């Protein structure tokens, strides 16, 4: 028997596998394929203060071993979300990691506050702060591209949530120095980090000779980007092990399709793993990764998942 549990600050999850925000809607759709409470946690689509229609279409383009999306954070707004989606997730017994965003730091705080005040808040095991979204106050520059904006958002959210609710800042890889952004988020009070969001990419329609997405650029995801996710987790974990950063749990995301893929992120430093785009290929993927990852832990002769977290830092051979 393997102990697959993992902890995110004050919270313990029965296993380390989650959905990725925006890749699983809010639970009911995947519940037709497997019971969503069997995941370590269910991560909801990023929700903002008001309802949002998102962008026009086409919103996606397939790419080599990946895809681009440009959804534009479509969602029902926090009030409808807590009333319908969160209530449903609570009713089936899911552990929920709620992804929130805003176009201003104040909007982040507002969403967090309304979430904390909601009747179904008991199902919430944490809040993922999607700072990889554009900041209207800063020429639309993504919050997570700038340590000062990242700091501000995380502080406000931390302030509006009970201290027993862990908050994870979700980082974009599109920065020169991800360790610097990680530092800003952790010093501002984030309990952990989720890495990585999509990479900014673009596809040209070679028949129409124009951008394929109505929104021109989009986020690149899928197995294609897994090496970037592993690298980001590695760099931040290395900085923690060196004492350059405070130690904190990392949630890995980016290109995970199988238990082996998940193991890559775990060995690099992630104590939990999200399955995103692979869900579109196979709606049962997140659930299957739970079993596959456990089988990998067994194959390597461990009895506790926690012992595998970051193990590649110890097994590295110095050249």
């Amino acid at each position, binding site marked *: 028997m393997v102990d697959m549990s993992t902890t995110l600050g004050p919270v313990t999850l029965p296993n380390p596998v989650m959905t990725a925000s*925006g*890749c*699983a*809607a809010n639970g*009911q*759709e*995947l519940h*037709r*394929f497997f019971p969503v409470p069997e995941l370590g946690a269910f991560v909801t*689509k990023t929700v903002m203060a*008001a*309802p*949002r*229609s*998102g*962008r*026009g*279409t*086409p*919103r*996606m383009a*397939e790419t*080599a*071993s*990946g*895809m681009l*999306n440009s*959804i*534009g*954070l*479509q*969602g029902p*707004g926090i009030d409808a979300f807590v009333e319908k989606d969160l209530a449903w997730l609570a009713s089936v017994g899911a552990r929920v990691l709620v992804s929130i965003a805003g*176009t201003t730091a104040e909007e982040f705080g507002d969403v967090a506050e309304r979430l904390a005040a909601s009747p179904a808040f008991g199902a919430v095991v944490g809040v993922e702060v999607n700072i990889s979204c*554009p900041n*209207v106050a800063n020429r639309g520059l993504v919050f997570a591209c700038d340590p000062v904006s990242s700091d501000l958002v995380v502080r406000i959210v931390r302030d509006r949530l009970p201290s027993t609710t862990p908050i994870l800042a979700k980082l974009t890889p599109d920065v020169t120095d991800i360790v610097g952004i990680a530092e800003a988020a952790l010093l501002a009070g984030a309990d952990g980090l989720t890495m990585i969001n999509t990479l900014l990419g673009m596809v040209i329609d070679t028949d*129409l000779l124009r951008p394929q997405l*109505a929104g021109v650029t989009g986020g690149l995801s*899928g*197995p294609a980007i897994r090496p970037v996710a592993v690298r980001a987790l590695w760099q931040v974990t290395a900085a923690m092990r060196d004492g350059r950063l405070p130690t904190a749990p990392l949630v890995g995301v980016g290109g995970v399709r199988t238990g082996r893929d998940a193991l890559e992120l775990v060995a690099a430093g992630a104590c939990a793993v999200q399955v995103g*785009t*692979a*869900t*579109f*290929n*196979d*709606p*049962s993927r997140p659930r299957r990764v739970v079993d596959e990852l456990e089988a990998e832990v067994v194959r390597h002769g461990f009895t506790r998942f926690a012992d595998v977290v970051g193990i590649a830092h110890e097994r590295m051979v110095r050249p």
Partner: protein
Amino acid sequence: MSGVVQVTGELIATRRAGAYHHLTLVAPGVAELARPGQFVALAVGGPTSATLLRRCFSIHKVKPSGTYGGTVDVVVAAHGPGTTWLTGLRVHDPVDVVGPLGRPFPLPAEPVPCVLVGGGYGSAPLFWLAEALRERGCHVEMVLGAASEDRLFGVVEARRGADGVSVTTDDGSAGRRGWVSDVLGEVVDRTGAGVVYGCGPMAMLRAVTEIAGRHGAVAQVAVEESMACGVGVCMTCVMPVTGNDGVTRMVRSCVEGPVFRGDRVRWDSFGDGICRVPADTLGAPRAGGH
């Protein structure tokens, strides 16, 4: 949301049908749940595939059981890498199937006359629908159109299964030269149709909706938006549709469609090959906003 299964199917027959390939897959469990207008999502490319996203196909017909277990038929136009891969498969090759997906064509409570309009491979799901309608006592006529004869699908089947068939081709290589919209009004009037069902390209569905409206029929159209997941989790397949409450929302065509009442679709937002968010949509971007 209704029942759905995910199963490793097996290709048991593949043959050309004009410009298309007609595939029969053993996919236990799908047939039992499926209704006309629903679709299946097929994984493509095999274990080393760089094409991750599923491809969606209207269910042409199902057989709940048989020598091999339930089967599902689809009609595939080879186009990009995924459909090319599918049409290159050989008998006994495995195909991962998710389905049935989406909302089926609603059937009228009364035996009203119906017209079924198919453009290109869009006719694929209509024969099965015709059967269901005739079982309910509806008079069923079909209008099939395509660019050219080889792109018509199922004319023979239509003649067998419908009470009347009109055919149009853009180039006149079969039936009447022109578009389905050129003949549809006349057929609706002649049959006194209460419902017009349509499946095909967006421009055709828009025309079908307008003609049905002008001739006093309700249009039920099965749309085809680019889909990444087919199961409702990615939000890529949305389009602006007005609800019972009069509010326009960007709704997922994979779970709330693919069949919509034609007059609910905001056709005005489609143009230049993109779909813009109408300004009155719930949560639409505001100037200076997102």
